[in-house]
């Protein structure tokens, strides 16, 4: 099986290690991994802000780049949803968009639903984890149980978190168009956050936002993309 990796621009720039972890994990599970080097951004920031012309050009680019892939896997729920759901709205009636939609998966979703892997190893034995459900993973992709299952089965304890399913306030351009509201939302997430060994999520944007805010408040906690933890689950 061959997977084309869409690493997403935020992960490329800010969580490069999570990309490495994704490659290692997929290879360890017997999957061949491609990284089409022409890739940049899926267009989500432009699309969400209403700049559909700009977003459409980026969507068309992405369609071309992943045209021949067997599967496309992204370590990001919101970018995966952009490709899987919103390209169809942006390019109505485009057969290529439909084909790409059908073969696109967020990483944990791919592991559980396509590879049928529910246990990676025991590398997270005894670790406590706070899991932030990225909104688009949760509500647009329906990715809810997959990450939790993979983490739990590797020995981690998912701590109860009242605000686990609430938006963190990132929202792409929202974070700079309405910075005060965005920060108030982050503060609510952080004020209810349990003391865990790590905070994780599928989405780099949410994590950047929460890490920055926690740093500003002098709160220290390991914040790490899901892909990195899943590799640790496997490799120990």
């Amino acid at each position, binding site marked *: 099986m061959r997977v084309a990796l869409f690493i997403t621009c935020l992960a490329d720039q800010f969580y490069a290690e999570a990309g490495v972890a994704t490659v290692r994990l997929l290879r360890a599970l017997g999957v061949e991994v491609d990284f089409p080097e022409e890739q940049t951004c899926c267009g989500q920031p432009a699309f969400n*802000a209403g700049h559909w012309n700009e977003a459409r050009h980026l969507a068309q680019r992405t369609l071309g780049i992943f045209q021949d892939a067997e599967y496309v896997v992204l370590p990001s729920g919101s970018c995966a949803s952009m490709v899987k759901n919103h390209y169809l709205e942006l390019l109505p009636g485009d057969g290529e968009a439909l084909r790409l939609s059908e073969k696109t998966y967020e990483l944990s979703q791919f592991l559980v639903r396509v590879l049928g892997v529910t246990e990676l190893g025991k590398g997270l034995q005894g670790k406590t984890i706070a899991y932030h459900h990225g909104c688009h993973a949760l509500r647009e992709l329906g990715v809810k149980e997959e990450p939790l299952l993979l983490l739990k089965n590797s020995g981690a304890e998912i701590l109860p978190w009242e605000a686990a399913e609430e938006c963190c306030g990132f929202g792409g351009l929202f974070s700079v168009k309405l910075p005060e509201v965005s920060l108030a939302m982050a503060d609510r997430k952080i004020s209810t956050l349990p003391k865990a060994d790590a905070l994780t999520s599928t989405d780099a944007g949410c994590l950047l936002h929460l890490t920055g805010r926690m740093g500003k408040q002098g709160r220290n906690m390991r914040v790490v993309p899901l892909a990195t933890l899943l590799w640790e689950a496997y490799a120990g």
Partner: protein
Amino acid sequence: MRVKAKLYPKEAARLLREQPGVREAVTGATLHFEANRKRAYQEIDAEAWRERARRVKDHLLTHLDHYLELAEKRLQEKGVQVHWAEDPEEAHRILREIVARHGVKRAVKAKSMLTEELGVNPLLESLGVEVYETDLGEYLIQLLGEPPSHIVGPAIHLALSDIQRLFHQRFGTPLDASPEALAAVARKVLREAFLTADLGISGANFLVAETGTLALMENEGNIRLSTSLPRVHVAFVGIEKLLPRFADLALFLPLTARAATGQRLSTYVSLIQGPAKEGEEGPQEVHVVLVDHGRTALLHDPEAWEVLRCLRCGACLNACPVYRQTGGHPYGYVYSGPIGAVLDPGLLGLEDTYPLPYASTLCGACYEACPVKIPIPKLLLAWRNRAVERGLAPTWEKGAMQAFAKVMQSPSLYRLLSKALRGFPLPQDLLPLLKAWTEGRGPLQPSPKPFHQLWQELKE
């Protein structure tokens, strides 16, 4: 009413800075409502109920002319006087005429968002009519001279201490009076008003076309008193509030109650079938004013019409983490929160409400809560796209998006930017976008090497 939606970003920031108590009060109350809704949805096959309700509303909206004619006919058969108002001015003319004909001195009002749209209170006051809001929350904000902050809980932004202070100033109650004591004071004032009012004003949760029945839901009993004690009752009904059949109430009454407050049914449901007949007690005249105020135009908008399914339950407000930070006032119009962000541009035009479609992170919690499955995130995106096409986006945003697209369409430019991000310290405090980010979150810290560079080492 004066629309202040353009000020939304400034007003939201100001409120967070100057009135932190509002955030606390609204967060507490909405989380409570939201937990109740979730519990109430779990008891039923919520997905099936919502889908059914959606279909009924879509049928109604796609045959609206037919059902409006039917409703008018049935209402008239029951002795109800039916009026049509295309805009607030027409509604005012109708109300002014009724007030003059009956020499109305005092009116009691049941909570209604439509009457907020129409500015009924200022009109009545200008006519010398004393108006009492009779929903407790609405009465509180009337005393304060504020608009509602929430569709169902108009005073959701107030803390108990705010109300204690207000009643102390108005009625001389002690500053530590219990909620029960405060309610007793309000009850005394309002009871007097109910018994002496000449006119009762209400909205309607539903108007059944098949039977000409007005359905009103509440928990306090004040709507029943407002619509049955005064000799004249005027109900303002948005044309989208119709239901085709009487049997539809069996779905919509419990669904609305579950969505709004997590109740299986509201404490009171009033079904009004016209004025009192000979020998019966009740109003001698019942008027129904069917109000358009932008709705027909919205119905013909293929990208935005679905918002007209709205039942005004407020579930999306309770679910919305953005609304939760500020309550409704910064949105600057009657309807706030997620539904306001897609309804206000539809009713008032995008030019006067531009920032509202951006008052969301597109998290989708509103859609999950909505009893009639209004695809609010999809509608927000459509309004945003339209805002950009009409040139309403600020210059910095347009520039940033064009630059972003240019970079992202060219791998070589992208790689150059990637190098710049690491090579030179970015003037993070100079670029407005970056500044808005870094002020609350500190500087951006890229990975030592981007993934596309690490990939070269992984390739072998």
